[in-house]
């Protein structure tokens, strides 16, 4: 049955029945989507223009929340910069790490399956458990890293207790937990036809030229996907910072999502937090648009044009 391209009114009775049946079958998802996704999203647009403490009726304040955030809230600016800093370093470094790891695990090394499992484990360990582990690794006096440094005759480093070190430490944690990206790269690498490498060798390409002119272009759609998902995740970073540093010291790891949470639930400012959420949404959309626009220059979609592929 082909109903594509024709309006509902022009469908036959049978086609309409089939369509309605289809709707009935997907209705659990539809109900869930409208109640748990669409309605909250639309509500939050409205709340972002109100003073709303969740417990009492919202009161319309126009653009006040947006104005106060952008012009009058120093901590908002700081948390935004913290998040941008984190995303700017964590996403590229995580992807480079995951890509290199995937290359390694795609090569014919001994115990390959074992290592693949080992490097993927951080992604399936509950975040809270991972955070507790890192808490001990980074501890100033009794932590694993500092004990090694001291045994090598070096001084302890304040991994989580100094504003200058706290963000880089969380970036390290983020890199460590990039097993999912590694898995996607691994799948992409296994999709690269051997014949292309053989042809490159015949043309006299060394290993670097094979990597740069064959591997990277063919894996570039996966890079785009991982980078995009990485940025979305980085902008929403919450758990590690919440458990390891509580946003400190001196708000150095107070990320956007932490501050949004504090406003929504601790300060009873759900309207203000909704405005923050929409500003974050716009930032994420901008990053996505830039990535997609730029992808025409660096993402290889086989024979298809960029537009056609997207």
């Amino acid at each position: 049955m082909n109903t594509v391209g024709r309006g509902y009114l022009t469908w036959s009775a049978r086609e309409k029945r089939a369509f309605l049946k289809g709707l009935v079958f997907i209705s659990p998802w539809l109900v869930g989507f409208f109640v748990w996704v669409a309605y909250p999203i639309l509500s939050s647009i409205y709340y972002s223009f109100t003073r709303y403490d969740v417990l009492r009726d919202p009161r319309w304040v126009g653009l006040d929340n947006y104005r106060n955030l952008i012009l009058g809230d120093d901590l908002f600016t700081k948390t935004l910069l913290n998040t941008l800093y984190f995303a700017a370093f964590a996403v590229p470094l995580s992807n480079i790490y995951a890509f290199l790891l995937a290359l390694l695990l795609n090569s014919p090394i001994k115990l390959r399956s074992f290592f693949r499992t080992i490097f993927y484990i951080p992604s399936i360990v509950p975040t809270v458990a991972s955070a507790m582990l890192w808490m001990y690794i980074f501890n100033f006096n009794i932590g694993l890293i500092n004990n090694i440094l001291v045994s090598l005759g070096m001084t302890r480093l304040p991994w989580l207790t100094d504003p200058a070190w706290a963000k880089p430490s969380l970036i390290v944690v983020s890199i460590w937990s990039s097993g999912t990206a590694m898995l996607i790269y691994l799948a992409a690498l296994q999709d690269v036809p051997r014949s292309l490498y053989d042809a490159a060798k015949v043309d006299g390409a060394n290993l670097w030229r094979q990597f740069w002119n064959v591997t990277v272009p063919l894996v570039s759609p996966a890079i785009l996907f991982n980078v995009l998902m990485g940025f979305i995740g980085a902008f929403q970073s919450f758990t590690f910072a919440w458990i390891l540093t509580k946003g400190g010291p001196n708000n150095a790891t107070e990320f956007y999502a932490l501050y949004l949470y504090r406003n929504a639930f601790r300060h009873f400012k759900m309207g203000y937090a909704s405005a923050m959420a929409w500003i974050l949404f716009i930032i994420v959309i901008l990053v996505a648009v830039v990535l997609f626009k730029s992808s025409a220059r660096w993402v290889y979609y086989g024979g298809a044009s960029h537009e056609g592929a997207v």
Partner: protein
Amino acid sequence: MNEKTKRLTRRDFLRLSALATSGAVITACARPTPTPVVIEKVVTKEVEKVVTATPAPVRELTLDFWFGWSGVWGDACKELANAFEEQNPGITVNTVEHGWAQEKLLTAFAGGVPPDVMEHYAPIEFAAREQLLDIDPRIANSAVIDKDNYFDVMWAASTWQGKLYGIPAFGFGADDCLIMQNQATETAGLDLDDPPQTWDELFVWADKLTTMDEAGNLLQIGFDPRDGVADYPYCWANSFGMGVYDPEAQKFSFDDPRWVDIFNLINDWIHHWGGPQKFEGFRETYGGWLAPTSSFCQGTQILQLNGYWSPGEIALKCKKELDWSYAWAPRAADYKDETYQILGGHNATIPKDSKYPDEAFRFLEYLSTDEAQRIVFFMAGGYVSTKSWLEKANVDFYPGLEFYINSPAEADNLYIYEPCPVDFVIWDQWYTQLDAVLWGDKTAEEAAADMYKNATAELESALAG
């Protein structure tokens, strides 16, 4: 008598409780005629009276009771629920630890399914947003809760715009006392009988008690001005002769120049001993307050300001071979001759959407009894400073308890944590601005000005509804 023989184990206590309550249970089970029974003998300084209450007609229901604690305090809350159930056949109390997680509480309130009884240390945040039941009329008719049995200021902590939204319960007492570890203090040649009375004197003591390694890392801290209740803005404000918030004028004191002095004082201290990073590293290793692994319980922090729960918690959690002494909290030099104390703690409240407000209030009545106090005292080391309890309490049971029990009445100035609709903002502003000073982002003047500006803006917004 040594400490071991004094201590009542949880098993002993439960056994005694079972014996003590069995009579009441049997009486309550002998249904159908609701005759008055003696609930509690309340003794105040002025009067001695026997109060009675008529058991409500029994009906099967479940009260939801939410409290913040886990650990020994959580166990005590569960025991309170059990004891109440035993005295009120038909009523089941479902206990839930809310951990003061706002998202848990807010969503429950917003969804119209709050608990029937909620423990909280900042009830005014909810009262000011019209979420709690005004219990003043019920207390006026209660034969169990006697307002005169409490210090007047304790009621002020849960009063908002003339209405009363909670009773002091679980733990509510003197918060600011200087606790000194005897062994280390004496080893340093300091006289425990002549404790420091001002911040400057405490500084001298702390200096003698602080040790560092060759790399300048703290090995032992004399006093951490950001641990215990010294991490509270109220402690500093009170020691400088002021409060934090004036509920009548609806105004913060952050524009008072004494806040600049406070910021500068803490900043000087922290930097004298290596800067904030050294303290953060030390705290990261041990944790703070009175956790069993904390620097204070382990004996690597020698002086601490902490509250009424300390004697009990120290006895239950800290190193047994150490001893501690107690003294008035230090003050600014201008207030050296004026001792102060602040009463603070937790409240039992009834959300306005409680399913069973009558039975919930009955539970509040139970929480006001000395029997409930005994449960918390023996299981967690806390208590509520009711007059009847303070007169009966065995002050020798936990070393140091006597100071906490007597100090509210003896202090020259008695403060409370003033009821404020943006309580959490006060704390967050305090930490944010103090951090900014310690890490060199702001001067003390700038931090105090920002604290006033931001807190006032939040207050105005909250009051506007």
